C-alpha cells in the first residue's frame, strides 16, 4: 500500500492501467499453493453450475473470513463468480472481493468490468451497489476509473446514487490523496445537493477530505441548517459537529460581554447559584447597553434548528447538540442541554461513561446548569467503579456553599461502601470540597481525622494524604491532628501514607517539638525495612530535625544517614550524601551550609486540589480528543471566536432585490430562490418526510429517471410547507386522488386543466379552487381577473372595499401618488386567491404608478404558490383588507421636517414569511433634500429580527416615499427599536405592533375550525362577555370591526348569530381562533382560542374594545 501512491505519483496517476508492476507482489503468486489442497472441495463447488453449491461454498468462505482465517488462495475461483445471477452469491463474492482485492491486485482487476457495466444499469440500486463495491476495492491502479465513476455518480439523477458517490469520496482519497483537488470539486457539487439523503454523507466526505475548506460551506450553510432535522441520525452528528466549527469562525461570541467573568473562574467558583443568575440577568442587560451585541440571524438559525434534536433517541445526536450549545450558545441558553444530558445517564454504561466525562468538563465552567439535577448524579452501589468515580467528580464540581451539606452527607454514605477504590476517590473528593469551600474545611478535616481510625488501611492512607494537603493550608491550628497522625505511624503500612505523615512531621516539627524526635527514633529502627518513598522522607525528617533541634537528633540523623549510605537504591544513597554535605558543617562545605535551614524549611505553597477535567474544554466536547485529553489523529481544532465577524453576506444565496423587480422572468426566478434564505426552518422534524414519500414512490413507479427530480422537489417542498403540512396531511388522507393535480402544480406550469376542473367538480368547497388557483397562477396570474368570489370571502372582500374609503381619508399625509399602491396590491392578491380557473380572461392593466408594491404582492403570491403547493388546509390567505390605521413613527417637529408614518399593510412579507410587513411612508417637509434614509442599529429583544428596507438615496423637498420593511416580532407585542438615519441626523424610533397585527389570516372550513377549536380548550381558551352597542349590531359592522382590530379572516358559519374568524400568528404559526356569539339582546360572548395565551388575552381586549366603541 505504501508504495503504491508513490508509484502513481511518478506516473501522474493516469495511464498505469494494466501494467505488470504488480506481478511480483508476493501475495498474488503461488506462495499459498500449499493451501490449495485444503480448499479443493470449495473450489470445486465454486466451479459447479449449481447456485446452491456456489452459495454453500461462499458461505463457508465467508465464515472463514469472519473467523479471521486466510482464504486468499481461493481468489481466482471466487472472482469468477462476480457476475453470478444469484443475488446472495453475488453479495458474498463482493464481501470476499473487498476483503482480499488489496492483496491480489491484478486478479481483482478482472472483476472491474462487471462493476463498470453495473454503473450504467438503469436501476439506481444496482448503479449504487456497483459504485460501492468498485470504490471499496483498494487497488491503486483503478484510481482513474473510480474518479470517473464518482464524478458521474455525483450528477446521477437518483439521490441514492449521489449518496453512494459521497461515500466513495473518502475511500478514493485514502487511496490516493493526490486526487484531492478533483474530489473537492465533487464535494462542492454534492454540498449543493438539496436532498436529505445526500447531506450527511457529503459532509462526512468534506470532513475527511477537506475540513479546512470552510468557504465551501458558506453557500450551503442555511440549507444544511434547514435540512438538518430530516437527515438520518448519523449524518446529523457529522453535520452538527462541522457546523460548530463553522460557526466559531463566522460569528461573534454571544458571551463576549461576559468574557470578563469567564476569565476569572475563581470568582465564579465560589459564587452560588443566585450569584450566577444575577450575572446573567442585570449584567447582561447593562452590558448590552454598553456594547450592543446582535446575534447574527444565521447563528440564531443554527441554534434554533438544532434544539429539537436534543430529543433524539440517539445519544450521539444529543451529545452533538449539547456540545454545539456549549460552544456556541449565549450563556443564558446553554441550560437547555442539561436535561437531555441527564436523560442519557439512564442509557448503557458506556454511554454514561462518555456523557459523564463531558458533564464533568461542562460542570466546571457552567455549574449552575447542572445544579438542579444534582441528585441525578447520586451514586448507587451497583454502578461500575469507573462510573462512580466520574459521578463523584461531577458532584464535587457542583458543590457550593448551599448544597455542600447535602453532598457531604451523601459522601458519608459512600465512605462506607465496599468498593475501596471508590472510597479512596470519595476521600479525595471531600478534600477538594474542603479546599474549595472554606466554610466546611474544619468539618471535613474532622471527618477525615475520624477516618484515620478506620479499619481499612486504604481508607486511612488516603485520608492521611488528603489531610496532609489540607493541613498545609493552615498548619498552626492543627498541631493536635499532627500529633494524632504521628501515633499512626505504628499502624499504617501503606507507604504513601507513612511518607505523608513523616513529611508533615518534618515540615511542622516546630509545632510538635516533643514528638518529632521520637518518631524519628522509631523510624530509624525500622529504616531498613521501609519502602523507598518512606526512606526518602525519613532522611528528610532527619535533616529537618537536625536543623531545628540538633541537640536531640544529631546522633539519630547520623545513624540514618549512615544506613542510607549503604542502601540498595542509588536515589537514597544520593540523597543521603547530598544532605550530609548540606547540613553537617565541615571544612569543605562552606557557603551552602548557612542556608541549609532556609532551603529545607522554606514556606511551601499549599497544593491546589483541582479537577482533572479543568481546561479540558479547549477540546471540542464530545470528541475523542476531549475524552483522551490528548489530540487524536485528525482532530480539527475548535477555533476561537473571531474579534470581528467575517462578512455575513457570503451565506446569502442570491436574493434578488424584490422591491424593484418587475419583469416577469425575474420574478419567476425568485419564486425558487427565497426558500433557503428565509424559511427559517420552521418545518417540524418529520413534516417534510410526510409529504415526501408519496412523491418519491410515485416517481419511482413512473420511471427511475424522474426520481431525482422529484426527490429534490420534495426536499424543498418539505421545507417550504412548514407548519401547514401537518394539517395538510390529515386533509390529504381525506381527499383521495388529489396528488395528481398537486404534482401538476409542482412540476409543470402548463397544468392539465381538465384534471383540475374535474377536481373542482368534485369538491364544492371554495378552498379547493382557491388553492388550485394558486397552482395555476404560475402560468396565468397575469391574465387572472377578479371573478365572482365565493360566499365567505365575498363578505370580507366587499367590506374591505367599503371600509377602504375610511382609512384613506384619515391618512391626510398620504400623497395621491401612493394611493393606488395598496389598492393595486389588494387587487393583485385578490385575483390570485380567488382566481377561478375557468375564467382565463386577461387582467386589467396594472396601475403603473406603484410598481414596487405591486410586484411585492405578486412575488408574495408566487411565493405563496410554492408555499402552498404541498398543502391544502389552513391556507394562508392574502389578507382581508379593512381599516388601515396609520401610526406615527416620527413627528414632523421631532424629525426636523421629516415626518414618518407607518401602517401594517397586512401583506405577507415575501423575503421572510415570519415577518410582519410594515409599510413606512416618509414625507419630506423641509426645504432641502433628505439623503440616505436608512435603518441602523436595531436594538431588539432576543429572537426578534428586522429586515431593513432598501436605503432611500434621496427624497426631494415636499416629496414622499413608501417602503416596506419586515419585522419578526416573535409573536410578542414588544417594540422593535431602531435608528432611522439620514445623511445628517439619526432618530431613535420604535415600532410597537398591536396584537392584531401579529397574525395572518388563514382560511378554514367550519369543520376544521371546530376541530381546531376542540384542541385548544382549557388554558388556551379565553372568554369574555360583552354588550354590543346599538350601532354595532349588524353583521356588517361586527365583521368590519373585528377585521379592523385584527388581521383575521372570517370562517363560514352555519348559525346566524355566530361569527368566526381565524388567523395564524406570523412567527410561530399558531392558530388564533375568534368566536363571537351573539346572544339575545345586545349581549354577546367573545371567545378566543389560541395556544399563545398572552396573545389570546390581549386579543380579547382589543376586539371587545373595538366592538364596544
Amino acid at each position, binding site marked *: 500500500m505504501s508504495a503504491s501512491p508513490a508509484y502513481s505519483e511518478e506516473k501522474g496517476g493516469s495511464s498505469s492501467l494494466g501494467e505488470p508492476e504488480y506481478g511480483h507482489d508476493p501475495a498474488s503468486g503461488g506462495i499459498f499453493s500449499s493451501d490449495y489442497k485444503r480448499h479443493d472441495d470449495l473450489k470445486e463447488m465454486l466451479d459447479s453450475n449449481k*447456485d*446452491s453449491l456456489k*452459495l454453500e461454498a461462499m458461505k463457508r468462505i*465467508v*465464515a472463514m473470513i469472519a*473467523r*479471521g482465517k486466510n482464504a486468499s488462495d481461493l481468489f481466482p475461483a471466487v472472482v469468477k463468480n462476480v457476475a453470478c445471477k444469484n443475488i*446472495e452469491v453475488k*453479495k458474498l463474492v463482493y*464481501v470476499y472481493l473487498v*476483503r482480499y482485492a488489496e492483496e491480489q491486485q491484478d486478479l481483482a482487476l478482472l472483476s472491474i468490468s462487471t462493476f463498470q457495466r453495473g454503473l450504467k444499469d438503469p436501476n439506481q440500486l444496482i448503479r449504487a451497489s456497483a459504485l460501492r463495491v468498485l470504490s*471499496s476495492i483498494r487497488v491503486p491502479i483503478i484510481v482513474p476509473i473510480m474518479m470517473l465513476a464518482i464524478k458521474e455518480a455525483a450528477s446521477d439523477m437518483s439521490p441514492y446514487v449521489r449518496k453512494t458517490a459521497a*461515500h*466513495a469520496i473518502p475511500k478514493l482519497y485514502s487511496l490516493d490523496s493526490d486526487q484531492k483537488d478533483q474530489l473537492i470539486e465533487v464535494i462542492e457539487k454534492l454540498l449543493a445537493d438539496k436532498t436529505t439523503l445526500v447531506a450527511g454523507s457529503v459532509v*462526512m466526505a468534506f470532513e475527511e477530505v477537506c475540513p479546512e475548506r470552510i468557504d465551501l460551506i458558506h453557500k450551503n450553510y442555511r440549507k444544511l441548517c434547514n435540512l438538518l432535522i430530516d437527515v*438520518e441520525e*448519523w449524518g446529523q*452528528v457529522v453535520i452538527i459537529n462541522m457546523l460548530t466549527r463553522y460557526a466559531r469562525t463566522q460569528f461573534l461570541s454571544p458571551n463576549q460581554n461576559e468574557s470578563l467573568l469567564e476569565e476569572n473562574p475563581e470568582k465564579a467558583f465560589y459564587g452560588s447559584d443566585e450569584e450566577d443568575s444575577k450575572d446573567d440577568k442585570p449584567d447582561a442587560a447593562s452590558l448590552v447597553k454598553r456594547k450592543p451585541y446582535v446575534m447574527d440571524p444565521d447563528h440564531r438559525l443554527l441554534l434554533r434548528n438544532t434544539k*429539537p434534536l436534543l430529543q433524539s*433517541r440517539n*445519544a*450521539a445526536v444529543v*451529545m452533538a447538540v449539547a456540545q454545539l450549545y456549549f460552544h456556541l450558545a449565549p450563556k443564558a441558553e446553554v441550560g437547555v442541554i442539561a436535561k*437531555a444530558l441527564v436523560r442519557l445517564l*439512564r442509557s448503557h454504561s*458506556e*454511554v454514561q*461513561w462518555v456523557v459523564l466525562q463531558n458533564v464533568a468538563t461542562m460542570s466546571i465552567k457552567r455549574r449552575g446548569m447542572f445544579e438542579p439535577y444534582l*441528585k441525578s448524579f*447520586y451514586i*448507587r*452501589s451497583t454502578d461500575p*467503579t*469507573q462510573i462512580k468515580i466520574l459521578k463523584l467528580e461531577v458532584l464535587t464540581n457542583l458543590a457550593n456553599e448551599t448544597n455542600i451539606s447535602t453532598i457531604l452527607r451523601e459522601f458519608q*454514605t459512600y465512605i*462506607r*461502601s*465496599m468498593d475501596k477504590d471508590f472510597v479512596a476517590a470519595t476521600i479525595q473528593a471531600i478534600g477538594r470540597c474542603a479546599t474549595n469551600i472554606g466554610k466546611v474545611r474544619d468539618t471535613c478535616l474532622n471527618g477525615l481525622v475520624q477516618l484515620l481510625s478506620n*479499619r481499612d488501611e486504604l481508607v486511612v492512607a488516603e485520608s492521611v494524604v488528603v489531610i496532609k494537603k489540607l493541613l498545609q493550608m493552615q498548619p498552626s491550628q492543627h498541631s493536635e491532628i499532627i500529633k494524632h497522625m504521628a501515633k499512626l505511624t505504628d499502624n499504617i503500612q501503606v507507604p504513601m501514607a507513612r511518607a505523608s505523615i513523616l513529611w508533615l512531621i518534618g515540615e511542622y516539627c516546630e509545632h510538635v517539638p516533643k514528638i518529632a524526635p521520637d518518631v524519628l527514633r522509631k523510624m530509624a529502627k525500622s529504616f531498613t525495612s521501609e519502602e523507598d518513598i518512606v526512606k526518602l522522607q525519613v532522611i528528610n525528617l532527619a535533616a529537618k530535625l537536625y536543623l531545628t533541634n540538633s541537640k536531640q537528633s544529631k546522633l539519630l540523623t547520623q545513624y540514618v544517614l549512615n544506613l542510607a549510605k549503604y542502601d540498595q537504591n542509588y536515589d537514597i544513597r544520593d540523597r543521603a550524601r547530598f544532605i550530609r554535605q548540606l547540613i553537617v558543617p565541615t571544612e569543605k562545605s562552606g557557603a551552602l551550609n548557612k542556608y541549609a535551614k532556609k532551603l529545607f524549611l522554606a514556606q511551601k505553597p499549599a497544593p491546589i486540589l483541582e479537577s482533572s477535567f479543568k481546561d479540558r474544554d479547549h477540546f471540542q466536547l*464530545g470528541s*475523542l480528543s476531549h*475524552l*483522551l485529553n*490528548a489530540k*487524536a*489523529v485528525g482532530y480539527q481544532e475548535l477555533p476561537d471566536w473571531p474579534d470581528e465577524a467575517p462578512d455575513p453576506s457570503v451565506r446569502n444565496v442570491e436574493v434578488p432585490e424584490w422591491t424593484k423587480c418587475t419583469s416577469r422572468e425575474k420574478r419567476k426566478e425568485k419564486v425558487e430562490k427565497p426558500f433557503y434564505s428565509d424559511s427559517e426552518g*420552521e418545518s*417540524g*422534524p*418529520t*413534516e417534510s*418526510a*410526510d409529504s*415526501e414519500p408519496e412523491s418519491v*414512490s410515485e416517481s*419511482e413507479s413512473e420511471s427511475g429517471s424522474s426520481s431525482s427530480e422529484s426527490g429534490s422537489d420534495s426536499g424543498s417542498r418539505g421545507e417550504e410547507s412548514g407548519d401547514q403540512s*401537518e394539517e395538510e396531511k*390529515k386533509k*390529504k388522507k381525506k381527499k383521495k386522488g388529489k396528488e395528481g393535480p398537486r404534482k401538476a402544480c409542482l412540476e409543470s406550469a402548463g397544468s392539465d386543466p381538465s384534471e383540475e376542473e374535474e377536481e373542482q367538480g368534485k369538491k364544492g368547497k371554495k378552498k379547493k379552487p382557491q388553492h388550485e388557483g394558486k397552482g395555476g397562477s404560475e402560468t396565468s396570474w397575469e391574465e387572472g381577473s377578479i371573478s365572482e368570489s365565493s360566499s365567505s370571502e365575498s363578505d370580507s372582500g366587499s367590506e374591505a372595499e367599503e371600509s377602504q374609503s375610511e382609512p384613506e381619508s384619515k391618512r391626510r399625509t398620504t400623497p395621491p401618488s401612493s394611493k393606488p399602491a395598496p389598492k393595486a396590491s389588494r387587487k393583485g392578491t385578490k385575483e390570485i386567491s380567488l382566481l377561478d380557473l375557468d375564467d382565463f380572461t386577461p387582467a386589467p392593466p396594472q396601475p403603473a404608478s406603484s410598481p414596487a408594491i405591486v410586484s411585492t404582492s405578486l412575488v408574495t403570491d408566487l411565493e405563496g404558490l410554492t408555499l402552498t403547493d404541498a398543502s391544502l388546509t389552513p391556507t394562508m390567505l392574502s389578507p382581508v383588507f379593512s381599516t388601515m390605521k396609520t401610526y406615527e413613527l416620527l413627528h414632523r417637529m421631532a424629525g426636523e421636517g421629516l415626518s414618518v408614518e407607518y401602517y401594517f399593510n397586512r401583506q405577507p412579507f415575501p423575503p421572510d414569511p415570519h415577518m410582519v410587513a410594515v409599510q413606512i411612508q416618509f414625507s419630506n417637509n423641509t426645504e432641502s433634500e433628505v439623503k440616505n434614509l436608512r435603518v441602523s442599529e436595531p436594538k431588539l429583544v432576543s429572537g426578534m429580527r428586522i429586515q431593513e428596507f432598501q436605503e432611500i438615496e434621496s427624497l426631494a423637498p415636499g416629496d414622499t416615499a413608501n417602503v416596506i420593511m419586515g419585522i419578526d416580532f416573535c409573536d410578542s407585542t414588544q417594540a422593535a427599536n431602531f435608528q432611522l438615519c439620514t445623511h445628517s441626523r439619526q432618530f431613535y424610533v420604535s415600532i410597537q405592533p398591536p396584537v392584531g397585527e401579529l397574525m395572518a389570516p388563514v382560511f378554514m372550513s367550519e369543520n376544521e375550525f371546530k376541530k381546531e377549536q376542540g384542541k385548544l380548550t382549557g388554558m388556551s381558551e379565553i372568554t369574555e362577555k360583552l354588550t354590543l352597542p346599538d350601532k354595532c349590531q349588524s353583521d356588517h359592522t361586527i365583521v368590519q370591526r373585528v377585521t379592523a382590530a385584527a388581521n383575521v379572516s372570517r370562517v363560514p358559519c352555519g348559525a346566524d348569530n355566530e361569527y368566526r374568524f381565524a388567523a395564524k400568528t406570523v412567527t410561530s404559526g399558531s392558530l388564533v381562533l375568534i368566536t363571537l356569539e351573539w346572544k339575545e339582546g345586545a349581549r354577546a360572548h367573545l371567545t378566543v382560542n389560541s*395556544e399563545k395565551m398572552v396573545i389570546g388575552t390581549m386579543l380579547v381586549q382589543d376586539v371587545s374594545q373595538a366592538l364596544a366603541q
Partner: protein
Amino acid sequence: MIHSLFLINCSGDIFLEKHWKSVVSQSVCDYFFEAQEKAADVENVPPVISTPHHYLISIYREKIFFVSVIQTEVPPLFVIEFLHRVADTFQDYFGECSETAIKDNVVIVYELLEEMLDNGFPLATESNILKELIKPPTILRSVVNSITGSSNMGETLPTGQLSNIPWRRAVVKYTNNEAYFDVIEEIDAIIDKSGSTVFAEIQGVIDSCIKLSGMPDLSLSFMNPRLLDDVSFHPCIRFKRWESERVLSFIPPDGNFRLISYRVSSQNLVAIPVYVKHIISFKENSSSGRFDVTIGPKQNMGKTVEGVIVTVHMPKAVLNMNLTSTQGSYTFDPVLKVLTWDIGKITPQKLPNLKGIVNLQSGAPKPEENPSLNVQFKIQQLAISGLKVNRLDMFGEKYKPFKGVKYITKAGKFQVRT
C-alpha cells in the same frame, strides 16, 4: 470512521472480525486484553482505549465485547451508539445476541455488518430496511432454503432505502391489523436508612407493536401530556406537532419499536409503592451478625405488587447465611456473596419477612459497611406517574385496526441503603 470490528467473548477468544477498510491485525486486541486484565471486572473496562496507532472503542453486551478499531478522531458516542445498534439488530434477528447465535448465523451477521457500514460510516441501520435486504432466519425458512436452495437475501431491491421514511417498509399487508402500546414505567429510587426518599424519578417508555397494512398515519394523544418532562422520540414522530399540540403523530415503522422514552422529573413527587424494614448488623468480636428484612406495600393504588425480588451484595467477610423466610425462597451465593430472595406477590395481610443469622469469617474484623438492598417488583395495569393514553386515531387507511394499551410499572434502579 469505524475501521474494524472484533467480537470477543468472556474467555478472550476473538470469534468474529470484520474490516471495512484495510485489514487491521488481530494483535491490536492485545491492548484491549491488557486493559481488561487491569480492570479486573468486566464492567470496569474503559470503553475507550488509546493505543499507539489506533483507538479502541468497545461495548459490553450479553457477555460479548464489541471492540471497534478507530484510526482518526470521531465522536466516541457515535461509535458506542452504533455498536449498540449492531447488538440490537442481532437481538432483533436472532432473538438473542449471544455468542452461539452469532456463530450459528455467521453469514447473516456478516451480511448485516456489510450493509450497516460503508467505509466505516453507517449506511442502513433501520431494522425495517435491513429486513428488506436480508431476511431474518426462521426455522421454516431455513428448512425451505435447504430444500430449494433459495437464499435469505431479499429478492426485491430495497426501496425503503430510497424513501424519506426509511423506518417503514414499502408494502405492508396484514389480515389482522393491530396496534399495541405498552406503557412501561420504571421507578429509579434511592431510599436512605431511615426510609425517606433521597432521590426518585420515573423513567418511562412506550414500546409499540404495530402491524398495520399500508401507510397508516397515527396520532396518539394523552389525557395528561404535561406530565412528560423530558422526552426522546423515535425519528418517525413529528416533533412540531408534539411541541404545539402535545400529540404524538407518526407514520409507524412496521413491527416492534420504541416509540418514545420519557422521564417524569424528580420535582414531581413519586409515589414509592413498597417500603422495606431492615435490620442488618454485625456483632463486634463475634463471627456472626443479624439479618432481618421485611417488605410491605404502600400507595399501590389498589394494585398488587408482584414479582418482588430482593438482592443483597453482602460484605466479603460473610461466609454463609442461615435464614428463614415467611414467603418465597432465598439463595445465597457464597462465591459472589449475593443473597437473592424471590418473594413473588406481596399480600398486605401477611408481610413477607426474611430473618436469621449471618456467619462471618472467624477472626476477620467486623465489616464496616452495610450492604444496600436492591429491590425489583412489578405492578400490572398501572402507570405510576398517572400517565394515561387518551386515544389513538388513524388516518390514511380505511380499515379499522385493533388497538390496545397496556400499563406496567416496574422497579428500575431501586436501592435501599442500610
